[in-house]
């Protein structure tokens, strides 16, 4: 490696992670989708259940849906080597005094181009697209790796002293342009990488809490707790790569929030280093009436106020039993009605998600090659039963995937309750396999975008939360708006415009939209993409949806904050920022 200084650290897991990750795409370098010589899709590597499998129907779906062709390739034009050795990256603007002081306190840092570029972006489409074309904008001038809370305190003090701009970096999975360096920033920008602060400091089995450093990555946290028989149950789709600190800073939401809660329900205590000093509460009481909860200034602050260093969070004993499930509905309307009823009766399983028909078809295209004639025969039978015997229209039916967790007896009871409700809305149980595959897809779907980008297809997902009575309207209108906007902006083929309801609440639901299109013939596809996404967001807001359910605001959705919060609301947030960080040391310019 080309790291300049590497003191103290025996295992530098950040360096490790960085090297096994793609620099211009999602996830691990060894895991990717490709079309092999026979034109069949396969997923490489060994990490996932789908790894090493052939997906026979993906090609037809891909070509049919997007009007794409395997003949028309658009591979990344630039290799990493070009970036690093041919000076595509601007030389760092270093604040010499700051660097000197860092050296003297012994905190590792680097101004190597690779390290800086890696931390200059999240995973928005425009960010990845630019990287694939070798375009690099403003990147941090320096990366520092604090090892513990006290290191962070020192770094923040030095930053204030020497006036450098700090941008906290956790797992780098942002999809809100939150990690983009503001181009107008004139100070030296320092990326504060929390990856070395990745220890569980203590576990309290009496109170079922754990005190954890905020740089820990989701899957590591879960694995380490599992070793002790516990879990947090917090499983955002990005949990392989995102960090605890990042969850807190963006108000993250996990797939199994119905049992474990979202991040705001899980957190008991937060320690954050700000330019004004350290903010934390004085005790671990489970609830307090001490004025507005200061945690709510921290959660969702998106790195604008300080660095979250340590978090005490709730843990649970690992579930005794897990069971997947799925239900097929004749149409999306019935599916939504069922989810609403499940929410009304407050009997939602750990996770319940409803895919629309397009997504159902997409999921189908990702079915691996069947191993025996018997399974394919069974599949045929199932299909026959649903479409011919039950009269479901294959172009309207949709699927809900379910995950139950808990003690075995209760799970089975719970399962029956949910299936009974589903039956009232015409839902048919469609097996554990379909359910499990649905959740597995969550983790590999992000890899698929990279495949699309090799063949002129770009896409993205975005989310919102909306009251129950608006769910159907918002789904229909946003999908339609996307199709309409693509057409008006000269996209040659109808886009993929699909949605799913991913979370249920008492008063509403979280809805996820996916959209992707074939950009052949467009001179500036990213611009077209951004205009369509912008229009889609306007449509969401006009239909009573929120600006974001859990992705956050970053810089991508800033323009709508004022109308979202009202002038006074904005003023409140601004005044907190002005007090905590008057010199804008945490200058990523997110949110406000």
């Amino acid at each position, binding site marked *: 490696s080309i790291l300049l200084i590497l003191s103290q650290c025996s295992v530098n897991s950040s360096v490790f992670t960085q090297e096994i990750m793609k620099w211009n795409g999602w996830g691990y370098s060894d895991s990717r989708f490709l079309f092999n010589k026979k034109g069949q899709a396969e997923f490489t590597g060994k990490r996932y259940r789908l790894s090493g499998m052939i997906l026979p129907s993906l090609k037809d779906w891909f070509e049919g849906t997007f009007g794409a062709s395997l003949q028309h390739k658009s591979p990344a034009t630039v290799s990493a080597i070009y970036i690093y050795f041919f000076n595509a990256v601007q030389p760092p603007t270093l604040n010499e005094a700051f660097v000197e002081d860092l050296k003297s306190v012994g905190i590792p840092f680097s101004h190597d181009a690779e390290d800086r570029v890696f931390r200059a972006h999240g995973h928005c489409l425009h960010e990845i697209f630019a990287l694939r074309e070798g375009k690099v904008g403003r990147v941090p001038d320096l990366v520092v790796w604090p090892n513990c809370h006290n290191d962070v305190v020192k770094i923040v003090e030095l930053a204030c002293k020497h006036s450098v701009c700090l941008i906290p970096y956790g797992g780098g999975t942002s999809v809100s342009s939150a990690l983009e360096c503001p181009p107008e920033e004139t100070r030296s920008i320092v990326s504060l990488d929390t990856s070395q602060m990745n220890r569980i400091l203590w576990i309290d089995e009496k109170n079922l809490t754990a005190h954890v450093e905020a740089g820990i990555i989701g899957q590591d946290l879960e694995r380490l707790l599992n070793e002790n028989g516990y879990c947090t149950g917090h499983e955002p789709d990005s949990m392989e790569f995102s960090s605890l600190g990042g969850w807190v800073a963006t108000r993250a939401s996990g797939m199994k929030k119905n049992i474990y809660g979202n991040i705001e329900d899980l957190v008991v205590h937060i320690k954050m280093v700000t330019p004004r000093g350290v903010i934390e509460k004085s005790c671990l009481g489970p609830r307090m009436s001490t004025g507005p909860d200061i945690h709510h200034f921290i959660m969702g602050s998106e790195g604008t106020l300080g660095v979250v260093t340590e978090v005490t969070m709730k843990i649970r004993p690992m579930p005794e039993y897990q069971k997947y499930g799925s239900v097929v509905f004749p149409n999306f309307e019935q599916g939504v009605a069922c989810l609403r009823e499940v929410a009304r009766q407050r009997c939602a399983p750990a996770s319940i998600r409803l895919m629309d028909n397009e997504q159902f078809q997409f999921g189908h295209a990702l079915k691996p090659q069947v191993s025996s004639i018997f399974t394919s025969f069974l599949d045929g039978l199932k299909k026959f039963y649903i479409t011919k015997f039950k009269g479901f229209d294959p172009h309207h039916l949709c699927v809900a995937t379910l995950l139950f967790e808990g003690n075995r007896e209760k799970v089975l009871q719970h399962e029956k309750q949910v299936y009974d409700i589903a039956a009232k809305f015409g839902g048919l149980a469609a097996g554990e396999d379909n359910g499990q595959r649905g959740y597995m897809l969550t983790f590999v779907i992000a890899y698929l975008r990279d495949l699309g980008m090799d063949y002129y297809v770009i896409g993205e997902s975005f989310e919102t939360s909306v009251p129950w009575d608006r769910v159907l309207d*918002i789904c229909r*209108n946003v999908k*339609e708006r996307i199709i309409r906007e693509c057409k008006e902006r000269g996209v040659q083929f109808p886009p993929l415009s699909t949605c799913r309801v991913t979370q249920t609440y008492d008063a509403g639901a979280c809805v996820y939209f996916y959209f992707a299109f074939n950009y052949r013939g467009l001179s500036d596809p990213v611009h077209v993409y951004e205009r369509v996404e912008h229009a889609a967001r306007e449509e969401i807001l*006009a*239909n*009573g949806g929120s600006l974001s359910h859990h992705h956050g605001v970053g810089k991508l959705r800033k323009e709508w904050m004022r109308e979202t919060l009202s002038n006074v609301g904005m003023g409140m947030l601004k005044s907190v920022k002005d007090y905590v960080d008057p010199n804008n040391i945490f200058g990523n310019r997110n949110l406000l």
Partner: protein
Amino acid sequence: MAAKPPYSHRDPMLKKRDDFEDILEERRNSSDLRYALKCYTPVVYKGVTPNAASLLKTTVLQSDQLHYVVDQLSKETGVAADVIQEEASAILEEMAHRQQLSTVRFFAFTLSKAFKALFRSIHVNEEGIQRLQQAIQEHPVVLLPSHRSYMDFLLMSYILYTYDLVLPVIAAGMDFMGMKFVGEMLRMSGAFFIRRSFGGDKLYWTVFSEYVKTMLRNGMAPVEFFLEGTRSRTSKSLTPKLGLLNIVMDPFFKGEVFDVSLVPVSISYERILEETLYARELLGVPKPKESTSGLFKARKVLSEDYGSIHVYFGQPVSVRSLAQGKVNRCHFNLMPRHIPRRPSDETQCFVNDSAYSLVRAQEENMVLKPWVLLASLLLQNQSQGLLLDELTEQAVWLRGLSREYGAFLNWPDHMAPSEVVSSSLSLHRDLVKISGGRVQLALGGQGPRQPCSSPITEEELMNQAVVVLSCTSYRNQALHVFLRPALLASAIHIATSAKKEEVYNSFSFLRNMLSNEFILCPGATLQDFEEACYLLGKTGALQMSQQEMQVTDSGQKTVNFLTAMLDPFLQGYQVVCRYLCEEATEALTEKQFIPAIRTFIVRLILAGSLRYYELLSSDLQKNALAALLRLGAIRKIKVADNVTLKVNRLMVNSLEDTLGGKLPTQKAVAARL
């Protein structure tokens, strides 16, 4: 047509319009019976769910909207909720359509026979039909035809049936229900009936609006209604009513549908069936109550020639693009959507602007026959009439001018102008007479006479007025073409100087004064002024410098024609003012106003001091009253059961003088304060 773009100097002559196809031609060549029994399989809206139509009433009665209002009323009045629900159910029964194909086929057959007897042709723009067919599949559609005749909605359904399009569901006035048999027939052909006024009745309003919205949301069938609210007796477009337009836009505002397509339809009759009926009505013979026997008496009309009809289906207007940047739909985020509430000012303003631009879209595609030009010319030369050659020559000149102004003129260019003129005159032979090569309005009596100089009886006067008013109804068809330039010409005429600013003030004054009379969108004064300047400048009638506007010598003819076109209206408003100043007593009630002013005008005409018979039109008198009320020159005061009119004499007087050009515009404005 998208939202009407802010006025640009786009030449109205370049407006592209579709070609027409005569749908009666095929009817004359093939069996009507086979046509009535043809296989009818229209394409439907993509979101439509099968058997939605049968669920319509239940959906309305079970809607959250209705439940909410029923509960509220029950709490307010103490009447049990199920009693009110029953009431709602009865309202719905009274209202709902019961469209059935057999009735539609019956109409298809009988109307084919009737249309062939009455009309030479029914022309339809097929491209418009194709656009409509496309629109029906994509979004819920609202059809907005102009309203000049009872015929309109039967004709619309007939055309849609002919082209295999989904038959519309039509909002009709309750007065049709009086005709028992016909009412039911209409109901079965797709009409639903609404009471003429139900101002405060919350329950009625809720049932009604839910009924319409449910049809729209589910896209069962195009909803059809008349923006003008009622048939225009004068052939001028009427100020649009906003209630139903509000209702059909609401599902879009609330996100219940992605978009709604509004399709303006312009129906132009070469000769209106109700021609003299309207004239009599305007002169104070009360409107005959619609009765079945009355309709059968109307059978004699079947032997007459009513020329041709042109039906132009305009560009579908997307409510979504109209509302872009004008209505913030987020306003509907903070309350459950089923709770009724008043539309915000922003929304009301938007609906109002849209209504005006839709009516203008109707006007734009109205087909004008040569007779319309002839009627305009003859009305301006009532006393002397015109020699046939003169008339032809002037008509050719006016043809040019109207085309320059963007009129949709249906002048058969392959025929000699003299032929065109004589065939037009023969179709309207009831209204004109030709003697000694001189063409004149058929005002009764023998030979040319001078109406203002010869003493006549009141009965004679009324008979003559019927002819004049029938004639004005044709002239009025062309008014929208000339309106803005005519306002400018009159403004130049009454302005104290040629200064642009003065002229603009006068223009603005006249426009404001006459905005109950014509379709003049509130707030678009400058736009209209610029449009008028452009049109007058383009034809060389006006020369403009930075500060001054001057009528050119060659433009004198145009300007005279335009001024003369507006003159009866200006005279009329002045007479109304004069009456209010000189004759009206303190105790004048609203109800007495029309008879009283009519007597006053008859007196003036008989005395020879007023020459325009068309001032006898109650439409003009009502509009003048409405304008004065709007301007605050008159106030309504409620005394017991009567509404009396309190006149601000000073202001009315100064308005009269300003209209007559005796007082500069500023003074009139000042007098208001």
